[in-house]
C-alpha cells in the first residue's frame, strides 16, 4: 500500500440534477428511497476514473478549462464531496485556501473574522489566539484590522484569508484560484509563503489559470479535460501542451 498523503483511485463524481425534482415535499418524504432513486437517474458526470497520487511535500498543479472539474476535485480532496465511485484518501490536517471572503462575515472586524475563520478551518480558540499576532502582521492590514470587513477592498479580504490559511500548519494545502486579486507585492509574498510550505514538506494541490504561477510553484501538473486526466507530467511540458491547445482553438 502507498502511504502518499493524497491518493485518488478510480474516482468518479456525478452531480444530481436536483432541479428536476418536482414531486413536492409530501412525496419526497413519504417515498424517500424512491424519490432518491429517481434523482439518481438524471445525473451530470463531472469526473470519471481519475487516479493519481501526490507524494509528501510535492506540489501538484491542476489545469483545465472552465467546468473541467478542478474545483470538484479539490472538493473531493477536502472531504466536502463524496466520490460516486472509487476512493479518495487524504491524510493529515487539510487546509483549504478559501475563495474570496468565504466564511467571513461582513459586519465583523478583521480580528473577529480571524478567530471565526481560524476555528472553522480546524484550529481551537487557544491555537488561534497564539497565532493572532503573526496573522495580523502577515496581513499588513494595519489599523483596518479593527474595521468591519464591509469597508475592505477585495484584495484586502483576500489578504486576510490567505493570512489565516498560511498560519494553520497544514499537512495538505488545497489552493483554488485565489491569488489573482492581491496586488503584485502581496502575490509575491504568497508565492514566497508557498515556497516556505514546500520547504516544510507541506503537500499541495494548486489549481490555477495562471500558467506562470503553475510553472513556478508546481513539481508536477495534471491537465483535466473531458472528465479525465488528459495529461500528466512535468510542469513545462503540460503547460506547453495545454496552452498550445488553447491557442489552437
Amino acid at each position, binding site marked *: 500500500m502507498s502511504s502518499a498523503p493524497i491518493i485518488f483511485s478510480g474516482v468518479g463524481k456525478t452531480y444530481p440534477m436536483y432541479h428536476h425534482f418536482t414531486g413536492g415535499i409530501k412525496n419526497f418524504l413519504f417515498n424517500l428511497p424512491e424519490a432518491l432513486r429517481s434523482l439518481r437517474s438524471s445525473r451530470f458526470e463531472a469526473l470519471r476514473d481519475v487516479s493519481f497520487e501526490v507524494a509528501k511535500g510535492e506540489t501538484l498543479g491542476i489545469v483545465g478549462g472552465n467546468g473541467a472539474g478542478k474545483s470538484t476535485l479539490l472538493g473531493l480532496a477536502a472531504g466536502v464531496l463524496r466520490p460516486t465511485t472509487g476512493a479518495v484518501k487524504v491524510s493529515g490536517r487539510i487546509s483549504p485556501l478559501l475563495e474570496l471572503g468565504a466564511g467571513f462575515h461582513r459586519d465583523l472586524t478583521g480580528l473577529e473574522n480571524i478567530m471565526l475563520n481560524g476555528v472553522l*478551518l480546524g484550529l481551537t480558540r487557544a491555537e488561534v489566539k497564539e497565532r493572532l499576532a503573526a496573522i495580523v502582521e502577515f496581513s499588513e492590514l494595519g489599523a483596518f484590522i479593527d474595521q468591519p470587513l464591509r469597508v475592505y477592498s477585495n484584495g484586502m479580504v483576500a489578504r486576510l484569508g490567505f493570512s489565516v490559511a498560511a498560519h494553520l500548519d497544514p499537512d495538505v494545502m488545497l489552493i483554488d484560484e485565489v491569488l489573482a486579486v492581491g496586488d503584485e507585492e502581496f502575490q509575491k509574498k504568497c508565492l514566497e509563503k508557498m515556497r516556505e510550505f514546500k520547504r516544510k514538506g507541506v503537500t499541495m494541490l494548486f489549481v490555477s489559470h495562471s500558467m506562470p504561477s503553475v510553472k513556478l510553484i508546481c513539481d508536477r501538473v495534471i491537465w483535466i479535460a473531458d472528465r479525465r486526466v488528459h495529461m500528466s507530467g512535468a510542469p513545462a511540458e503540460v503547460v506547453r501542451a495545454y496552452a498550445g491547445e488553447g491557442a489552437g482553438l
Partner: protein
Amino acid sequence: MRYFIDLTTVLTQKELKVRYKNSFFGYLWSIAHPLAFAAVFFVAFKVIMRVQMEDYVLFLIAGLFPWQWFSNSAGISPHIFLGNASIIKKVNFERSAGVLAAVLNETIHFAVSIPVIVFFVYYYGRGAHASWLYGIPLLMLVQFMLTCGLALAVASVNLFFRDLERIAVITVSMLFYFTPVIYSLDMVPPQYRALVNLNPLAPLMASWRSLFMYGTLDAGLVALSAVYAAAALAGGYLVYRKLVWKFAEVL
C-alpha cells in the same frame, strides 16, 4: 469534543455580535415583539371579546415569551445552512455546530428576557417560587432539545426543497393558534382536549405558564414534552446525518 465546543462558541459569538452591532436596541427589540403581541391579544380578547380570565396580561406574557423563542428559532432555521453556503462548500467542519449556535443564540435571548416575565409576576402581586430554580432550567432544556431537533431537520431539508421555508412560516403561525398560549387548556371543549396534546408545543407552553404563574409543574405534561423533545432531537439528527454529505452538492 474540545474543538466542537470551540466551534459552537465562535459561531454563537458571531451571531450575537452581528445582531448587536446592527441594531442599537438589540435587547429591547427581543422583548418588544412578545410584549406588542401581548398588548394586541389583550385588547382583542379581554377588552373587545371580554374573555373571563384573571390576570390575562400575565397569562399572555408567561406563554408568549417562550413561544417567541420557539418561533424565532423556527424562523431562522431554514437559513442556517443556506446562509453559510460558501464555507460549507469548501471546508469539512461539523455543520451541526451551526444549528446549535443559532438555537443557542435564541436561547440566550429568551434567558435574558426572563426578568421581564418576573417583573410582570410581581406586578400582578404574585411572588417568585422556589420551584423556578429547577423548573426553568428543566423546561429550557426540554425546549432547547425540541428546537434543535426541528431546526436540524428544517435546515437540512430546506437545502433540497427550498419551499420548505414558506411551509415552515405558515405552519408556525397556524400552530400558534392550536397551542394553548392565548387560551388555557380547560377552555378547550373536553372532546378535543386530548387532540391538543398531539401538538408537541402544547404541553410545553402550558407547563411554562403554570410554572411562571403558580410555581407548579404537572409531571405528566413535562414528561410528555420531554418525550416530544427527545423524539424531535433523534429524528432531526437522523435526517441531518442522512443528508449532510450532499450539502456541498446542492448549495
